[in-house]
């Protein structure tokens, strides 16, 4: 048997391609939990603990705990931080209220996507920009360069911030019961807002009677990448393992399990969320990717990529669509899509949907073949499998 996924090729030494492998502050917890690891942007991250499917279903029905410490956190600070980000990013970041978050894009001058990211306004003059691990250097460099025109400073704090996400319908119930976690505004926290909190690990017998354990700061955001309700917790790396264990212990009775990147990928795919390097890249324009709403052409002033984007996506450029098919054979990234006998596009992500039970895929196809209901064919390793264009997302939670 050979396995076509390069991430799990036997014998591939961790981190051999681009320097030594990096490890999350939670690595030992993952090892102890029996995780399998995969290289992700140079990091050895848990791909699964036991079963991709069990972890996927846990997030849809109860909750899953993800280690996202590999992600990049870059702080932009100063009196003109908001103006700087209006110039650096595609969205109107100055319109984001303190406590609010915004999904945005960092565009290149040619209008391509350097990264997709979330900007959290954590103060009048302070923003936390959370970017993909694979684009950390590019985003940090571009923000530094673009923000240098304004009165603000840029700090890459990725090495000093760990990130734990709890995702799923039971997330709130679990997070609100973790001993030592205090998040005053948790109940009122809205989707795409963040709030400060603290975590004071409950003292063990060993240190009873001594000084109170320290109170650690948390940033708690109601955001995620799974299509479920959930929270992302930004915390100091040395505190992360204790918080991780406390969450798992509190949530065990509610069905909380640690979940790896394999389930994260099928969850985000069902939720129709793009993944950089698959649906998004330097050669993709926001409009092709269905992210036109993220680009604010009405905002005053220039922003990087504006001119290129305003000239519009070239006519006939391929656009991102959802595809569903029958049976069990899923189209995978790179598989060609046919309209009749003509190749009209290619798949960027695909899987047999664990929640829906049928194959789903995202693909870029010619505009002429992209209308909802269009009947296309996916070349699944030599067999043409019928597929229909559907609107994204494939899965939407009941609210």
């Amino acid at each position, binding site marked *: *048997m050979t*396995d076509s996924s390069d991430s799990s090729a036997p014998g591939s030494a961790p981190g051999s391609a681009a320097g030594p492998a990096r490890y999350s502050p939670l690595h030992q917890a993952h090892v102890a939990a029996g995780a399998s690891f995969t290289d992700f942007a140079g990091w050895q991250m848990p791909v699964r603990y036991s079963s991709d499917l069990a972890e996927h279903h846990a997030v849809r029905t109860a909750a899953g705990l993800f280690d996202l410490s590999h992600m990049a956190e870059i702080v932009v600070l100063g009196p003109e931080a908001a103006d700087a980000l209006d110039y650096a990013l595609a969205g109107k970041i100055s319109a984001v209220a303190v406590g609010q978050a915004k999904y945005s894009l960092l565009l290149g001058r040619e209008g391509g996507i350097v990264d997709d990211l979330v900007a959290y306004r954590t103060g009048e003059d302070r923003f936390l920009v959370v970017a993909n691990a694979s684009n950390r250097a590019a985003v940090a460099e571009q923000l530094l360069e673009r923000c240098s025109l304004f009165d603000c400073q840029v700090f890459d704090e990725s090495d000093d911030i760990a990130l734990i996400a709890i995702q799923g319908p039971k997330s709130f119930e679990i997070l609100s019961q973790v001993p030592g976690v205090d998040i005053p505004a948790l109940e009122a926290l809205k989707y795409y807002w963040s709030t400060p909190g603290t975590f004071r690990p409950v003292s063990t017998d060993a240190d009873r009677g001594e000084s109170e354990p320290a109170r650690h700061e948390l940033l708690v955001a109601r955001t995620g990448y799974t299509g479920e309700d959930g929270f992302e917790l930004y915390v100091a790396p040395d505190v992360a393992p204790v918080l991780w264990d406390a969450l798992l212990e509190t949530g065990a009775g509610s069905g909380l399990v640690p979940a790896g990147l394999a389930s994260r990928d*099928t969850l985000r795919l069902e939720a129709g969320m793009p993944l950089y390097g698959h649906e998004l890249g330097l050669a993709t324009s926001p409009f092709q990717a269905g992210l036109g709403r993220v680009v604010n052409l009405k905002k005053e002033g220039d922003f990087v990529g504006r001119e290129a984007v305003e000239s519009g996506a070239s006519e006939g450029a391929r656009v991102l669509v959802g595809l569903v098919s029958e049976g069990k054979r899923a189209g995978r990234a790179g598989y060609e899509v046919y309209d009749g006998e003509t190749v009209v596009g290619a798949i960027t992500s695909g*899987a047999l949907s664990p929640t829906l039970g049928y194959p789903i895929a995202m693909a870029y196809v010619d505009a002429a073949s992209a209308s909802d209901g269009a009947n296309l064919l996916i070349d699944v390793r030599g067999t043409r499998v019928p597929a229909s264009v559907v609107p994204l997302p494939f899965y939407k939670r009941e609210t």
Partner: protein
Amino acid sequence: MTEPSALKYTKEHEWVLVDGEVATVGITAYAAEKLGDVVFVDLPSVGATVAEGRVVGEIESTKSVGELFAPVNGTVAEVNDAVVAAPELVNSDPFGEGWLIKVAFTELPELLSFDEYSALVGE
């Protein structure tokens, strides 16, 4: 389940149980673990002629697709319909109920011993 130490192996992470002139073939626990949850198995038809090293089937997980190679020349004598109906057997019992095909072979090629295979996967 047959003891893994009593089986023969291929570099493609398949195990082979030789009984007379019939070879039972499956994928190893190592391969199943690397694939993740298997959700679809495609096997050849009974009676099909297979050639050593040729692709005769597919094993798909949520994350990726693995190919099943024929480890021997011969004719497919039996396929595991249970694993087609319940692909998760490949994960839960790769050396037992998760077997894939039985091939009536004409000649047995050189296969890896348990120790050689263990060394290959570093376990």
